């Protein structure tokens, strides 16, 4: 029901925004004062491209993204659970061009020459820049779990990048027998979407129940000893799916060391677990392009100035989103969106030759445990002595003693958040 009205509404909104930009020089009229290239069109990159154009239409913005459509990882657990289509998570880049004058190039950046300030693409193009924003997300550490590489992922999905992987996991749940076992391998910190594996466990239990397979078990083997919103998840699992979900921390031999794809078996230090569906979420690092450009530290993530997001390693290159180290902000869609706005404002000021403005950041992560049962964690962030820290006394998780009505509201707001943040980015 919301689908149609939302589309119409977005048209109204973007029409207004377009009208308000008529006074500015558009891309075709030439004469830009600076060029910013954005690598990667996800929550971070696409937001940065749009907000740079809003901040200063005299800046030429070129967004280089290999896919024609963005598919959101946030809410993709609802696709795994058969509650939502992949199409409802997919967005095109046309509005960024039509309404904000962002030039979108569908190609893959293969090389960043920080010295000459030029990026090269697989398609053989070269683009010079005044400033570069790198928002490539994460790459998986293949074989960090022995035997789990990109080929293994075709059989045992990670489903940690939304798309075919998400559907593969869903099909496997549909095919498994009642009384079967689903394993989720949860990665060590840091990784993108910290509450994601635990939301997934809940929504898989929901789907199995819907499919009449409530004798099945969902087992999380974890490389950690605690996780985001843990008490809320454990309470939510027990209330909605009593006895179906269990969590094995690293200290109880939960860390998976090896995978045998053919035997569908996970090996921890002392045990072997054979399952019907194995969802292996591998350890992560900043995407390989960031590593290749010399932007990462020895742990594989990109240190930055947390006000401007300019790389600590390379001048004129800014890194935002999951790939960067942003103080106490988690690797999440809303974090990336918020960082992108701060970064865009800083770059606009730097191009003007003025001081970057005082930043303000925010993040909320909603998790859906059942269709009418949601929880959240939120924080407002400030820069303090060069580090992003959460404002004391604010933020935190939903209360443990919330009413059923409040849990239902949070599930509603979770989906509403998705509609609004995607209209903020792609609308």
């Amino acid at each position, binding site marked *: 029901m919301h689908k149609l009205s939302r589309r119409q509404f977005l048209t109204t909104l973007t029409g207004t925004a377009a009208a308000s930009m008529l006074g500015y020089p558009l891309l075709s009229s030439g004469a830009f004062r600076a060029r910013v290239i954005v690598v990667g069109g996800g929550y971070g990159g696409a937001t940065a491209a749009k907000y740079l154009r809003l901040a200063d239409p005299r800046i030429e913005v070129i967004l280089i993204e290999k896919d024609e459509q963005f598919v959101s990882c946030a809410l993709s657990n609802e696709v795994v659970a058969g509650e939502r289509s992949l199409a409802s998570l997919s967005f095109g880049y046309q509005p960024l061009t039509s309404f904000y004058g962002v030039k979108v190039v569908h190609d893959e950046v293969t090389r960043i020459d920080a010295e000459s300030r030029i990026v090269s693409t697989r398609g053989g193009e070269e683009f010079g820049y005044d400033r570069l924003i790198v928002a490539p997300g994460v790459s998986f550490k293949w074989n960090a779990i022995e035997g789990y590489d990109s080929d293994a992922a075709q059989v045992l999905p990670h489903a940690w990048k939304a798309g075919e992987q998400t559907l593969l996991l869903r099909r496997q749940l549909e095919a498994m027998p009642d009384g079967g076992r689903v394993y989720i391998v949860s990665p060590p910190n840091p990784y993108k979407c910290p509450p994601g594996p635990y939301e997934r466990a809940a929504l898989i239990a929901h789907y199995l129940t819907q499919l009449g397979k409530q004798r099945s078990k969902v087992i999380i083997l974890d490389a950690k000893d605690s996780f985001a919103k843990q008490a809320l998840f454990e309470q939510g699992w027990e209330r909605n799916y009593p006895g179906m979900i269990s969590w094995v921390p690293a200290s109880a031999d939960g860390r998976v060391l090896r995978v045998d794809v053919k035997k569908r078996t996970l090996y921890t230090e002392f045990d072997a677990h054979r399952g019907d569906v194995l969802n292996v979420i591998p350890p992560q690092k900043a995407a390989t392009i960031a590593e290749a450009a010399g932007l990462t530290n020895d742990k594989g993530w990109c240190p930055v100035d947390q006000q401007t997001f300019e790389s600590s390693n390379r001048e004129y290159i800014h890194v935002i989103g999951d790939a960067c180290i942003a103080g106490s902000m988690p690797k999440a869609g809303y974090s990336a969106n918020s960082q992108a706005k701060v970064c865009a404002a800083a770059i606009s000021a730097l191009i003007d030759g003025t001081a970057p403005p005082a930043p303000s950041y*925010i993040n909320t992560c909603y998790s859906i445990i059942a269709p009418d049962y949601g929880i959240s964690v939120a924080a407002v962030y400030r820069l303090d002595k060069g580090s992003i820290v959460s404002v004391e006394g604010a933020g935190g998780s939903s209360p443990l003693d919330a009413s059923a009505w409040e849990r239902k509201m949070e599930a509603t707001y979770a989906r509403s*958040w998705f509609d609004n943040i995607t209209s903020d980015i792609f609308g």
Partner: protein
Amino acid sequence: MKSSLLWSIPLVLVLFQIHTAHAQPSHRMLADACAGCHGPRGQSASPMPIIAGLPEAYLEQTMRDYKTGKRPSTIMGRVARGYDDAEIDALAAFFASEVWISPPQELDPKQVKAGKRIHRDGCSSCHKDNGRFQNDTTPRLAGQWKDYLQIVLEEYWLWERRMPHLFMSIAVSEFDEEDLEALASFYASQR
């Protein structure tokens, strides 16, 4: 010489204070962060409420009520506590200066009709002009998202939510639960 030096001491102190005080982010910087939930410029694309163009004083008071817990919330209390008074004022000023846009919504005409009757009998003395009227204590309702209107009406209706504005809880207590959806549909149908 001596007197001019003395004279300059307060100035130096003032400058020092400005330099060391917590630099306040601009109105836009603060407000842009809210767009993830409330939509660009507060023009929400789904049930989270539209806040663009609401009265400044109303927005300020509502944020303060969230912050102190006087108004219950799922998440806004946790968010509002992240902002000091000056920042709340800045946010209110920003969103008050934006334009309200009523989104098209699919509504049940029967509900809208029933809601109009309830509005006339029970609500129109404050929510004048079919809910378009707004002042420092009365938010605009016309064109707000139906789901959100219904949520807030339910909040007033459920006494255990302990909402501020006792008169609203008393007014709403007259209604049946079905009336709430009708009323929400009516206001949502207005432009």
